[in-house]
């Protein structure tokens, strides 16, 4: 079981308290009706599914109930960092070469 640090509770808590909520930093367009079919496809269906560093959303379901973002390595499952929803994608991830 993984330990996940909730950036709102500022505490590491067991994975059981959390739910994954898919890839992060995919913003819904403010003018969604104006999106082309291709743009909508990219927004709604296409995900990066990388081997390595992934930016994803988690919810502290059985805790503060907040959604937040996390950087995780899909090879080791290790959480590298977590940060609050709405904060920009981190330019530098600790311990990861760009």
């Amino acid at each position, binding site marked *: 079981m993984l330990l996940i640090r909730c950036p709102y509770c500022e505490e590491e808590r067991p994975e059981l308290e959390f739910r994954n*909520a898919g890839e992060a930093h995919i913003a819904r367009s403010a003018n969604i009706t104006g999106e082309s079919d291709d743009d909508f496809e990219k927004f709604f269906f296409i995900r990066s599914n990388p081997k390595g560093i992934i930016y994803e959303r988690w919810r502290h379901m059985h805790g503060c109930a907040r*959604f937040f973002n996390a950087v995780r390595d899909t090879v080791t499952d290790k959480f590298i960092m977590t940060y609050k929803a709405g904060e920009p994608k981190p330019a530098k991830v600790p311990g990861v070469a760009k």
Partner: protein
Amino acid sequence: MSGAFRIPGAGRLKQAKTARFSFDGQSYAGIEGDTLASALLANGVHLVGRSFKYHRPRGFLSAGAEEPNALVEIRRDAARKTPNVRATVQELYDGLAAQSQNRWPSLAFDVGAVNDIASPLFSAGFYYKTFMWPKAAWKNLYEPKIRAAAGLGVAPDQPDPDHYSARYAHCDVLVLGGGAAGIAAALAAAETGARVILADEQAEFGGSLRFESGAGIDGQDGFAWAQAAVASLKAMDNVRVLSRSTAFGYYAQNFVGLVERVSDHLQNPGRDLPRERLWQVRARRVVLATGAIERHMVFADNDRPGIMLASAARTFLNHYGVAVGRNVGVYTANDSAYAAAIDLKKAGVNVAAIVDLRDNPTGPVIDEARALGIEINFGRAVIRAGGKLRVSSMTVQPKNGGGERIIPVDAILMSAGWTPSVHLFSQSRGKVAFNDETKRFVPGAYAQDCVSVGACNGTDGLSATIDEAYAAGAKAAKDAGAKVAKGTKPKVDASESWSRGMLGAAPGAGPNTTVKAFVDFQNDVTAKDIRQAVHEGMRSIEHVKRFTTNGMATDQGKTSNMHGLVIAAETLGKPIPQVGLTTFRAPYTPVTFGSIVGHARGPLFDPTRKTAIHPWAEAQGAVFEDVGQWKRAWYFPKAGEDIHAAVDRECVTVRKTAGLFDASTLGKIEVVGPDAAKFMELLYTNPWEKLEPGRCRYGIMLREDGFIYDDGVVGRLAPDRFHVTTTTGGAPRVMNHMEDYLQTEFPHLNVWLTSTTEQWAVIAVQGPKSRDIIAPLVAGIDMSDEALPHMSVREGRICGVPTRLFRMSFSGERGFEVNVPADYGQAVWEALWAEGQKHGATAYGTEAMHVLRAEKGYIIVGQDTDGTVTPNDAGLDWAVGKRKTDFVGIRGMARPDLVAKGRKQLVGLKTKDPKVVLEEGAQVVADPKQAVPMTMIGHVTSSYWSENCGRSIALALVADGRDRMGETLYVPMPNGTIEVEVSGMVFFDEKGERLNG
């Protein structure tokens, strides 16, 4: 008397306490402290099982958890039957009853042994090849027969009466393995004040010090030192010591699962003790001190009872005081078997000969053996074992061929060297590295915060082990944040020598031989099988493993992995590291289902949710159905009524007078805040801004892809307050969906969401008399049609308690839904019921509710929709705000495929024969004469007998359904094709006049 093979003065057990036990119905005596294995051996019993595939007679290979052969069933009573217990691990208690497995009719005469003679049929991968033809025989003959014959042991056939507990624990340093290395590491860590857990699978700590008579630490015998050290650890507040506790799995972030066997060793465990306890430990640092496992020699008939690992024979002698024979032979490729020969000789057992594959080894143990007068043969091999139910001889030959000599023996002790136990390290995702010099896989790159020490790290010798372990324990504590302490490292006075051994098949079992030289005893895999797998095209060691089953099942390759790997590598002509090791899987040793499940069984398996009105429904004799976790009243049968009669009566009564229905399970969410209406506009297809407070609207929620996600009636209580209802099953995900958008996409909106599902009890009163039933109990609400029209909501009081009274209908009749705080639910229901009785009202359940709503064509999300249905498909375009510029799903709904022709649309179906009720899920076709497979154009989503309509009714999703009104379609069923006519979805009161009737 505790057995003819017990040697007076040998071992550590106190002779005083006798424990009587039985094996296959025969009574024996042992001593408390024995394992079942040592007690049987003390009585001269070696034959304890039959092998998995060939049903060959088997005895004890080991004295520990690596035992592949001696699997028995322990029976406490009719329900407590545990199969596949390793007799070498099971502690003896007075009255223990064990049975051998995998044999019929008896252990000595087993009909299944014919498999041994027919073994060419059962070579590697036989089940992929032998049972292929004729095709029909698979289902009727092979599959049932193989199923009956396959498997190890027999599963218990009654519910497990024992209970199992679970503990979570956190520590700074978790030390796994309680031999010399583990104890030294724990001592060093504990001295710093760090929180330490030390765990070992055995009843007593000490590991290999149990049999190493040549070990001395701090002026004591090694085993005695271990007991003293563990006693001092137990006395420390910061240390937890777990014996009989196997670390079976190493998971992410130093999360380790252990099973503590609490009462399997007790004669009368008592009801208050759990059988086992699952420990889930999170450690800052883990020290792996899991030791090494001795390997056997791979030679012909090396599985005869009486042939065992040298360290096992030493353990039985030095710990349990049992001689494994009276005239033993030794076959070895390293030094450690000499120590066994020396110990046995000194205890008065005749050692017929030591056969050593090495040419001219030298060393103190060899000198000592020679000085004791033991015959030693260098450069020779045992090429065959004689005997069947017990080994009777060993055939010795120079290793490069030559004259054979048969030496009579009643036991053979063998040692091919030691394999570091890297199971847990490998489970931690660490990568093993091959040491070419010592021919061992040892821990290489670490993936987690752990360290390996001692034999499992390839460290030889007691001094080096204690040095390494003590330093590692101190460092682990420091890395976990503890302060450095000045402790005293244990001082090694004496230790035994180690040497490397050999890997793979021994002489006589090499390529082009057909002998049965076992590599994996538990899975009956021979050296020949591994070579055959390579010859048949398996190149990867993972394929070889699966084709031969080498190292699979409960054994996980403890004794077999390295031999199998080397034989495969030789056959492939590749160096060992290029072939690589198979992945070690959890569990290290088998884990009971009980320990994993713990208390989460029966009523505690999953929460059961009951409404406030549940006790009343129960008292009325309601039949319940499960809806998610909820128990819902399904129907209320009167004496003599079946479900059909009850539902027909309930449906008719609702439309004639009235009915009461418990709708408390409906999901309820309070949406509050200055931007509540804006939020509702974005989450639902409908317009909300202009909905007046006090009015309700049927809302549809979509996912972003444009498909219907949920629906429900929403009441606006105030400009900034909405009372939202959801489907029963959808409540949690709708809440999650709303929170997701509020927190991440629309965080600028000032809105709060609160789940109120369990705060409100909801009583639906539906039918022409509904107002007459409610009105006398209501205060503060004008119940007239003008003041409280259909689809409106008022706050007031009922029976003196607060209510949110909705005028709404899910039956098509004049209807109300009375929301009261859940604590008052049953009282208000009973008051309404008393009023209802005056008018002849009925209580009705979910089945009648379904029929009534289907008569009106009201959909149920999740039944009439399946996640690919748009509002247009469901005929709900009217509920989509035409002038809205944004809501979740607005863009998805406009995708080309969602607006194309030919989509399945929800319509009504009427069977031509009104008495025929369609099956839900049945497929609809346009032409019943077409060839199979037919083109299916839709399926039935809801179907009922409607007593009110006097006929069957159905809803269906049919391609271009709305263009097919009046068309005849067909529903092909196994008993014939049913003709249906496409109709509108409303079967009763098409004009909707009864809402105000």
